[in-house]
């Protein structure tokens, strides 16, 4: 089966980002495929490479990067939700004149159309948070 994954909650406020990671990993290990992983609302902060939790805490954004590299997953961050919450690609930050950018290399920024397309083209949309 082909799944599309939607994650909505801030990783500091909800286990959704971590739960989605475990689901996605389990689905892939069971032979299913993942059409796309879409980060929306508070979940977009997962894609920032300027998050510094204490050393003894897990970095869930990195765990997603590792899984994406292993299985060639598409990690898409909603542009409107990301800009609202201060997550910027180099291109978008430059376009609006910001000096810093913080989107992790393994993630891409795109529009909500990518979420709708994923929900239509996959067999199941599984939503977290």
């Amino acid at each position, binding site marked *: 089966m082909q799944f599309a994954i939607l994650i909505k909650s801030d990783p500091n406020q909800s286990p959704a980002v971590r739960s989605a990671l475990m689901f996605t990993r389990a689905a892939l290990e069971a032979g299913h495929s993942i059409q796309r992983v879409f980060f929306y609302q508070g979940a977009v902060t997962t894609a920032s490479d300027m998050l510094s939790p204490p050393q003894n805490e897990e970095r869930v954004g990195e765990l997603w990067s590792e899984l994406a590299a292993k299985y060639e997953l598409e990690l898409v961050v909603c542009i409107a939700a990301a800009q609202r919450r201060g997550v910027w690609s180099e291109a978008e930050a430059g376009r609006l004149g910001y000096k810093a950018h913080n989107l992790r290399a393994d993630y891409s920024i795109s529009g*909500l159309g990518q979420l709708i397309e994923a*929900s239509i083209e996959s067999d199941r949309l599984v939503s977290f948070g």
Partner: protein
Amino acid sequence: MATKKIMYINRATPHGGITAKESLDVVLISAAFDQDVALAFIDDGVYQLLKGQQPEKSGSRNVAKSFAALGDYDVRKVYVEQESLAERGLSEADLVDLRHENPEDDYRDTASIRLISREKLARLFSRQDVLFNF
């Protein structure tokens, strides 16, 4: 591209955060994909449709006003759960009057909001291809 039955379940209060706004953004984008779109308002989500809101006074966005545009985006099915309204002391008369031009009835001006019981709404959920829960 296939046509799917997509339902948006709205459960958040209108001004407790930006969830109502971020849900509506997805609804409006999905309209461009020519899908069979419906909205459901349950729990505190029914407050999103209250008429007479003046959230501008507290710097919040008037989502009830934005919903008026849904008909223009061919979003014609807006379900409101009866029990959620009753539990909050509300009735249909307290809600905004959303309208659309009904293509199945000679484009007659038609009310978009349909009250539905919890039991029937549950059955409606089970007939959807995609559920978005905000």
